[in-house]
């Protein structure tokens, strides 16, 4: 196989650049670059780039690519990959210019691959050769153009034209043009069908897998439904991944509860709500702020950062949330079940939580908040009778229930016994008396309901791990928690009956890699998040950090260059030594004599020449001068300055 690519047909590079310009809105640049790259077709002069020049330009392209990657990554996070893709024709422009305007008509593989460069000329012709990068550039332009993601059908048609144009020059001579054309039509027809099929495949497979996840695995917080692990066998495992960060100058003595949402009806391991409607909160004019309660003002604020996997998500918030502020936020919505949903960009976002002395208004209790599943009704009646709840006041009930769970139950994240469906809570209440937070929260809510107090099951996070180094609370997936809300005296209150050992117990499962993962998470947070209010990205500071390796590389290159120059100086001095004498004052005289008399023959010495053109004694007057010149020109030792002066003096005496 011939590994060397043939050049792109004339005009094709311009065509592919125009497609790129049209898709990415770089049309002006596309035209300029395209014309620059096609112009050499019409001009004859070329620049003789040495291998070293080409290597340095290739390195420079690499550095440009690195800078673009860092800049784009900092500004756009992982979404920036498409931005980088969009800029590729710029990155490769230098190499294309070298190819188009250079005498080599291609790029040596040693310029493209450092490994080949290190082998030098000994790499062998199979590895070290000059290749034309015109055709790859055409394809890079097309892939780059695809990042524009506009006018799908037109783009397909233009790609088809460019690729057909390219293939026309490569077609096999054994077959007729008709065969080639028919083959191409066939290919393009099926390609069109395939690309439609790929789109459909993605839609269908996404739907399928989402359903699968919904059924068996992870899903985002659903304000209408949550499945508990009640009844699940084995050890409950939650990851150490940091879900959100909460800025605080010092740690709070008691855990903070950040709820996501509350649920009202329970059945077979799932808590549900009726259809939840979200209310859009109006943005405060002139500010990136959303005030949940217009009548209240913020008494305190907390800075929070959360990682969003989607542009819309329910965020954990404290009960007394009053406002949300941050330039990353686009929209804020709340539901009557206490959930707060935001729309923002994906990745780490920062916002400020405004806190007031009043809890956020949640829907008043309904009949459903007193409902107990029929299969557990008798169990809770039995406990209520045992604790004499029916005759107690609301506050007494609360303290009795709290004490009951504290005295009789303990925390466990392992469940080994298999029970019949619908009897999990019964076994928890009467047999095992151990379980995790979902057992406690559910049982508490249902017991309070039995005692006539409306109660809801609430999920969210318990904020308790404080990082002194970062002055921040770190909230991990394993800090996810469930507790109960009860309604007395016209307000909802929190009640957590889960033994307080739950958090340390779950922390026992943390991996050895947790510190490393935390560091990576912090780096990612620091490099991708932005300030809450300022439009200027704080990441610019971090970009400087990322630019350190680049700076080091450039310094090294600069230092290397210096060394080369120093060496060159030495060489220059050395070579000057050898070229001494070429500035002999005799040369103008020789030129003059040559013009007047006869010029020197090839290989003829000065002395022989003088003797030839000046027969007799006339030549003798030049003998001393020539001897002096010979000494100055060819004798490496001696005082050159003095010799030069002697020649000049001798010349003066001659004239």
């Amino acid at each position, binding site marked *: 196989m011939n590994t060397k690519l043939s050049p792109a047909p004339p005009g094709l590079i311009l065509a592919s650049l125009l497609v790129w310009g049209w898709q990415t809105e770089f049309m002006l640049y596309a035209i300029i670059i395209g014309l620059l790259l096609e112009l050499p077709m019409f001009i004859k002069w070329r620049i003789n780039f040495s291998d070293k020049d080409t290597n340095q330009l290739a390195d420079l392209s690499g550095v440009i690519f690195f800078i673009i990657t860092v800049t784009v990554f900092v500004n756009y996070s992982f979404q920036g990959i*498409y931005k980088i893709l969009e800029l590729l024709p710029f990155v490769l422009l230098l190499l294309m210019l070298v190819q188009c305007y250079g005498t080599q008509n291609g790029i040596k593989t040693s310029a493209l691959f450092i490994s080949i460069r290190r082998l030098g000329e000994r790499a062998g012709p199979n590895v070290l050769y000059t290749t034309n990068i015109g055709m790859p550039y055409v394809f890079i332009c097309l892939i780059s153009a695809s990042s524009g993601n506009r006018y*799908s059908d037109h783009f397909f048609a233009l790609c088809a034209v460019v690729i057909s144009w390219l293939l026309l020059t490569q077609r096999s001579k*054994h077959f007729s043009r008709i065969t080639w054309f028919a083959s191409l039509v*066939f290919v393009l027809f099926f390609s069109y069908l395939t690309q439609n099929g790929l789109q459909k495949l*993605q839609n269908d497979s996404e739907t399928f897998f989402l359903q699968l996840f919904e059924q068996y695995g992870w899903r985002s917080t659903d304000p209408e439904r949550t499945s508990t692990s009640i009844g699940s066998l084995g050890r409950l495992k939650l990851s150490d991944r940091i879900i959100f960060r909460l800025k605080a100058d010092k740690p709070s003595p008691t855990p903070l509860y950040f709820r996501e949402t509350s649920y009202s009806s329970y059945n077979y391991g799932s808590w549900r709500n009726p259809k939840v409607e979200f209310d859009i909160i109006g943005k405060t004019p002139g500010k990136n702020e959303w005030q949940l309660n217009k009548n209240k003002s913020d008494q305190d604020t907390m800075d929070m950062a959360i990682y969003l996997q989607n542009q819309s998500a329910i965020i954990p918030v404290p009960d007394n949330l009053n406002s949300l502020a941050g330039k990353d936020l686009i929209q804020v919505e709340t539901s009557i079940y206490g959930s707060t949903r935001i729309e923002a960009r994906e990745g780490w976002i920062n916002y400020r939580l405004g806190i007031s002395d009043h809890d956020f208004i949640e829907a008043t209790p309904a009949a459903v908040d007193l409902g107990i599943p029929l299969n557990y009704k008798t169990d809770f009646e039995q406990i209520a009778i045992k604790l004499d709840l029916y005759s107690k006041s609301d506050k007494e009930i609360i303290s009795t229930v709290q004490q009951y769970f504290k005295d009789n139950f303990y925390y466990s994240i392992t469940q080994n016994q298999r029970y019949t469906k619908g009897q999990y809570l019964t076994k928890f209440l009467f047999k095992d008396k151990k379980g995790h937070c979902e057992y406690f929260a559910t049982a508490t809510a249902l017991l309070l309901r039995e005692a006539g107090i409306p109660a809801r099951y609430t999920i969210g996070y318990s904020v308790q791990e404080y990082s002194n180094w970062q002055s921040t609370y770190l909230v991990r997936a394993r800090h996810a928690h469930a507790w109960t809300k009860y309604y007395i005296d016209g307000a909802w209150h929190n009640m957590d009956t889960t033994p307080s050992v739950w958090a340390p117990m779950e922390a026992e499962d943390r991996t050895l890699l947790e510190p490393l993962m935390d560091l990576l998470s912090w780096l990612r947070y620091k490099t991708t998040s932005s300030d809450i209010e300022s439009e200027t990205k704080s990441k610019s500071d971090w970009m400087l950090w990322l630019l350190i390796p680049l700076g080091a590389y450039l310094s090294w290159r600069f230092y290397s260059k210096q060394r080369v120059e120093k060496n060159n100086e030495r060489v220059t001095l050395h070579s000057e030594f050898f070229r001494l004498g070429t500035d002999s004052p005799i040369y103008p005289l020789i030129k003059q004599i040559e013009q007047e008399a006869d010029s020197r023959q090839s290989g003829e010495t000065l002395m022989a020449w003088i003797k030839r053109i000046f027969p007799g004694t006339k030549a003798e007057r030049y003998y001393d001068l020539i001897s002096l010149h010979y000494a100055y020109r060819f004798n490496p030792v001696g005082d050159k300055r003095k010799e030069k002066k002697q020649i000049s003096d001798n010349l003066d005496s001659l004239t």
Partner: protein
Amino acid sequence: MLRKLIFANFKLVYRASQWLRQRFTSTGILILSIMPVAGVFGFDTRSTLSFQIFSITLILLFTAMFYSLFFRGKFSIIRKLPEYGSVGIPLNYTCIIRNENKTAKRGFILVDELKNQFPSFAKFSKAKDPLDKNRNRIDRFIGYPRLVKIMQKIRGGSIKPINIDYIAEKSELETSIQLTPLRRGYLQFDKTRLAMAEPLGLIQGQKFIYNKDSLLILPKLYKTPRLNLQGKRSYHHGGVNNASIVGDSQEFISLRDYHPGDPIRSIHWRSFAKLNKPIVKEYQDEYFTRYGLILDTFLDEQSEHIFEDAVSVAASFMTAQKEQDALLDLMFVGNTSYRFTSGRGLAGAENILEVLACVQPAYESNIAEVELMLQQHSRECSAFICILLELDESRLKLVKSLSELNIPIKLLLLKESTDTNSTETEHDIHVIHHENLQQDLDALWTT
């Protein structure tokens, strides 16, 4: 263990790479490389339109692959090889291709292929590539570039593909093919591959014509002076066949350069006067000069190219010697001890070169056997040239044994590095460096 595992996968990778190189045209490789890139960026069809480029390249390759299955035709090949080749010097040979089909064929490629064989792990792990020092650690550890080099060496040469534009039906076409031999020994021609690109010009349909042949490649030769060791002529008993041809009997044979020990009466004064150097008349007798050239073949830590250098140096000495001057014994130990005599009407240079073309390194120490051979033949030889690959204890012992013979010896040591040590100086060993081989050889007789 890990290296063995990696090596086990090399066969697959190498075959895949060969398959790609043989089946795909350069444009085909480009399309094949673009396809996964477009696929990766187009994985999410909502983010970019790259999946459209992926679709086009995918269908292009499928179609091309399908077309390439239908390359049919009947051809025959006749190869006309020269008698010898020499390492590194391109040679041309003729190939006659006959189109047995009823239709003319155009636009295909003819590639003559040499036999390929995958090396054993032992050979792979022992092999060293001088370019390794310029490679990065991963390449050095994994060693795939080294494997490619070994495979090239096993094949023994690179053959340029020939583009055949047109061949009429039922007719023959004679074409010249260039082969650059990369190693000495016999190159085995295995088959001829005819490849024709399908209409889109991406993938080549292939047809193999099996036609085995072999070609002897002689070692690379360097410019060396004639041997001029100050050795005395030795007596060879009348039973020696050579004595009937070379010697001091009254039957005049030829004139030759004077060697110390030649009687004054043998000097041919007219020639002396004419050439200004002593020339003697040669007569038939049992006395004649006989040089021994000992080639060290035991390859231990050295790279194989040092051994190749040693063979080349030996071959250069053997060919530089004029046949009428003296007899020359080439001695080395491979599986067994070998001694080949050339000169004076016995084996010619080409025979010795053929022997040297096929000499293989021994991986188990054989220096003791060399010493034994030396004891057997030392009395017959006037001088020795010994080409060593290393200077370890056993070789030093050999050097000492040679010195004790009290006959002129020339000790050459092939080395990769340019440093010299005191042992070499002490024993008057001439170091020949891999990088400056010719210069060191030139300097050999002036030092």
